C-alpha cells in the first residue's frame, strides 16, 4: 500500500471511529413512519452521522416489525426491520389518544427534524402536522415521504406507500429486464423490480439529503421548512437520460436485458464460475479488450469499429457471443487478472477496461476486502442475538459515520426519552403508557 493509501486508512478506518466527534451531534430527529421502511432509512442515515433519532412506534410496535420474508424473525421482529434498526431510541405512543398526541407534539417541538410517512391530513388532525407545529417551532424541518408527493394532480391518490409502487412509477423497472421475444411473452420478459427495496432506500436517502440541505439553510437563516419527497421521483432521478432523450430525440428508453443502448461492451458475460461484468466502451478501451481476448482485428470490424456501431443491438449480441467464446473457459478471477495485466501498462482511456464478478451475497461477505474495510459488522444483543449488518458506507477522517446501537423492543426507551429528554413526570408517563388505542 502506498503512503497515501496508508494515510487514508489510518485516518478513516471505521475501527478507530469511536471517540471522534460526530457530524450531526446535537441534531434531534423524530421518526414516525409506521409500516414504512423509507422513513427508517432517512432516520438511519441521519443517525449514522450522529443525529439523536427517536423512533415513535404505535403501542404494540411498528407493523414493519411483523414483516418477515421466509418467516425468519427474532423476538417477533423480521429481518427487514432489524436491518435498518440502528442508532435510535424506541418509544411508543398512540396518536389516537390525547396524551399521545400531546407527547408527540412535545417531542416534535424538541426536535430539529421530523420524518413521517403518514398522510398529512392525519398528522394535522392530530395537531402534529407541519402547519400545526411551525408556529411554535419556526426552525423545524418537516420531511413528508409519500408515493406521489404532497402536491400536484396525483397527490391525493389513495395509496399506502410501498417500495413496489415507488419502483413502478419511477421508470426504473421499465428499463430493467428482458424484452419480449418472438413467441408469447414469458413471465420473466417483464419490467423487472430491483430485488432489494431500492425504491424505499432511495426515497429515504433523498429524504436525508433534503433534511441536510434544509438544516444547512437553517444554520444560515434560522428558518425551517417543509420537505416533500416522492419515492417515485426519488428513483426517477436515477433513470438516466429519459427526459433529455425524449426532449431532444423523441425517444424513450426501453428494456434490453443486460445490454445497454448507449455503451457497449457493458454487460455481464458468462464465465466458468458464473458471470462477470465486462465493460470497454470507448474506442481505446475496446482496443485493449480485443488485445486481451486475442482478437485485435475486431477493432476494424465495421460492426464494432465505432461507439455508435457497437451500440446497435444486433452488434451487441454478436459481440457478447465473441466475448463469451473467450470467457467461457476462464474464471472471473482469471478474467480480472488478464484485464489488470493488460491495463496496468496503460493509462487514461485505454485503461478503461472494467470487470468485476457477479457475486452472490455470501461471496461478497466472504471477500477479505470488505471485511478489512469494516463494511460489515456483527451486532450482539440479548434480545435480538447476533446479526450480520451493512455498516455505514462512508469512511470519514474527521467525523466518521458509525453504527452505535441496534434494535430494541417497542417502548424500550420510553423512560429515557419521556422522563429524561422531555422532562415528563412519572405520572405523565403512566398516563401516556396506559393510552393503548392503536394508532
Amino acid at each position, binding site marked *: 500500500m502506498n503512503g497515501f493509501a496508508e494515510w487514508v486508512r489510518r485516518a478513516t478506518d471505521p475501527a478507530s471511529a469511536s471517540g471522534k466527534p460526530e457530524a450531526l451531534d446535537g441534531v434531534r430527529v423524530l421518526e414516525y413512519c409506521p409500516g414504512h421502511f423509507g422513513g427508517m432509512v432517512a432516520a438511519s442515515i441521519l443517525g449514522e452521522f450522529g443525529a439523536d433519532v427517536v423512533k415513535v412506534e404505535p403501542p404494540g410496535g411498528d407493523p414493519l416489525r411483523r414483516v418477515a420474508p421466509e418467516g425468519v424473525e427474532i423476538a417477533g421482529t423480521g429481518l427487514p426491520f432489524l436491518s435498518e434498526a440502528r442508532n435510535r431510541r424506541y418509544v411508543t405512543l398512540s396518536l389516537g389518544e390525547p396524551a399521545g398526541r400531546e407527547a408527540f407534539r412535545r417531542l416534535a417541538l424538541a426536535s430539529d427534524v421530523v420524518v413521517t410517512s403518514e398522510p398529512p391530513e392525519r398528522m394535522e388532525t392530530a395537531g402534529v402536522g*407541519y402547519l400545526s407545529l411551525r408556529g411554535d417551532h419556526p426552525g423545524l424541518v418537516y420531511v413528508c415521504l409519500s408515493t406521489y408527493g404532497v402536491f400536484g394532480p396525483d397527490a391525493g391518490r389513495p*395509496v399506502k406507500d410501498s417500495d413496489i*409502487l415507488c419502483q413502478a412509477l419511477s421508470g426504473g423497472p421499465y428499463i430493467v429486464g428482458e424484452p419480449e421475444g418472438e413467441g408469447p411473452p414469458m413471465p420473466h420478459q417483464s419490467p423487472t423490480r430491483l430485488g432489494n427495496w431500492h425504491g424505499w*432506500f432511495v426515497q429515504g436517502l433523498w429524504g436525508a439529503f433534503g433534511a441536510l440541505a434544509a438544516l444547512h439553510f437553517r444554520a444560515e437563516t434560522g428558518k425551517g421548512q417543509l*420537505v416533500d419527497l416522492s419515492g417515485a421521483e426519488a428513483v426517477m432521478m436515477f433513470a438516466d437520460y429519459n427526459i433529455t432523450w425524449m426532449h431532444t430525440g423523441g425517444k424513450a428508453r426501453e428494456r434490453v436485458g443486460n445490454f445497454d443502448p448507449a455503451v457497449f461492451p457493458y454487460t*455481464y458475460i458468462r464465465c466458468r464460475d458464473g458471470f462477470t461484468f465486462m465493460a470497454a466502451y470507448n474506442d481505446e478501451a475496446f482496443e485493449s479488450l480485443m488485445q486481451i481476448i486475442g482478437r485485435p482485428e475486431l477493432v476494424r470490424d465495421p460492426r464494432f469499429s465505432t461507439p455508435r456501431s457497437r451500440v446497435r443491438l444486433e452488434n451487441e449480441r454478436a459481440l457478447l457471443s465473441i466475448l463469451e467464446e473467450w470467457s467461457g473457459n476462464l474464471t472471473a478471477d482469471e478474467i480480472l487478472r488478464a484485464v489488470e495485466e493488460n491495463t496496468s501498462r496503460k493509462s487514461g482511456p485505454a485503461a478503461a477496461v472494467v470487470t468485476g464478478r457477479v457475486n452472490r*451475497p455470501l461471496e461478497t461477505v466472504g471477500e477479505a476486502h470488505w471485511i478489512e474495510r469494516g463494511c460489515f459488522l456483527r451486532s450482539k444483543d440479548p434480545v435480538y442475538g447476533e446479526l450480520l449488518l451493512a455498516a455505514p458506507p462512508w469512511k*470519514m477522517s474527521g467525523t466518521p459515520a458509525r453504527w452505535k446501537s441496534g434494535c430494541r423492543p417497542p417502548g424500550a426507551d420510553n423512560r429515557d426519552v419521556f422522563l429524561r429528554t422531555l422532562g415528563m413526570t412519572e405520572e405523565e408517563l403512566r398516563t401516556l403508557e396506559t393510552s393503548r388505542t392503536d394508532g
Partner: protein
Amino acid sequence: MRGFREFAEEALAPSTVPGKPEALAGIRVLEVATRIFGPATADYLAQFGAEVIKVELPYRGDLMRYVAPEGFFWKEVSPAFLSLNRNKLHVGLDLHPPEGKELFLRLASTSDVVVENLRAGTMDEWGVGYLQLRERNPRIVYAANSGFGQWGPYSAGRASYDATAQAVSGFSAITGFPDHPPMKAGFWVGDYTAALLSATAILAALAARRTTGEGQMIDLSQAEAMIRTLDWTWPYAGITGKDRARAGNVDPSFPPSGIYRCRDGFVAVSVRDEEEKSRLAHALGATPPDGAGTVTPGRVAAFCASATRDEVVRTAEREGFSAAPVRGGRDHYHDPHLRARGTVWTVQDPLYGPVDEYGPAPKLSGSPGRIKWCAKPVGWHNERVFGELLGLSPGEMEELSRKKVIGKWADAPGARPPAGGTSP
C-alpha cells in the same frame, strides 16, 4: 385554518422557486470527475445552489460527453451528458503540468468541497490530493469517490463502473428471476445511488465544519454504497447461511405485492398490511373463510391479465388496496403531475434554448432546488472562472492556452458548441 394541501400547492409551487433563496448558496464545489459517479454527486449539490466548477481535461473533456444513446447527439451534445451536469461552470484545465496544479490549488483554496472519482490515489500522485489541498485550505471537504475505496486489497488500480458495483455487491444476484441469470439494472443505479450517498456525506461534513472549523476526507466505494442498500440480504445470510434468492417480480416481504402484466402494459399491485390484503381478496372475489389466504400471485396475475392498467388502478382505489402503473420515460415526459411538480422541468438555456430535464427530487418550501442552466462545452466558463474568479489577465490566459494548460473544446460532437453558438 387552511388545509395542508392548499398550503403545500402554494408553498411548493415551481412558479415560486425563482424568487426564493437557495439552500447551498455560497458553497463552492470543485469537480474533477468523469462519467457519472462524481458528476452526479456535484449535480445534486448544484441543484440546491452550490457553485460547481467542473474541471475537465482540455479538449475532449469528460468521456461521458461521448456516451450517446444509439450514438445520438443533439446540438452537438449527448442527452446522457446533459442530465448529469446542470448548473455547473465548465473549465478546461490540465492537472498534469505545474501551472495546471497551481491553478487548481488556487481554486481549491477558495472552495469548500472537492469531488473526484479518479482511480484511488491518482489526485495524490498528481500533487493535488487531499493532503496537498488541506495545506492550503484546512476547511476543504474532500469526497473521494471510487469503486473499491482508497485503501484495502482491491483499492489499488482497479477501475469501476456502475455495474461493477451492481455485480460485486450482490445486488444483481438478488435482482431478476429464479432460473434465469442475474439481472443488471438497465440504468446506472450503482453510480447514482453512490453519488447520492456521497452528496449526503458532503452535507454532513459541511455541518460538522460549522462546529469543528475543519474539513475532512470522505472515502466512498460505490460497491460499499450498494452493499448498504441491500436491506435484509445480510442478516439473512448471517442467520441462515444462505443466499437470498432472486424472487422475480413478487416482493417476498409483502406477497403478492409485485409487478403484473395487464392487457395494455404492466402494473404494480401493493398490499402492505392485512387490511389491504383482505381488500385485495375481496376484489378478486374471494369469500371468507378462505379470504386473504387465497390471494396468491397466480390469482393476482390472472386478474391483471384480463384488465387494463387503469382498470386495475381504479379497482384498487375503489376496493382499498394499492396499485400504480409501471411507467417509463415517455410516460414521465407527458405526465401533467410531474410537470406540475417541477419534476419534469423546462430550463431556458442561453445556448440550447428550452430543454426539458428531470428537476430536483426533494421539494423544499423555503430554499428549493432548481435547474438554472444546462451542461456546456468543454472550457465554456474559462474566462469567468480563471479571469473573474482567479483574476488572470487575458494575456495570462492566452499564454496558458498556448501551453495547453487551459483549453476549450475539441472540434467534435459531444465537446463543442452547437453551430452558431461560440461565445458564452
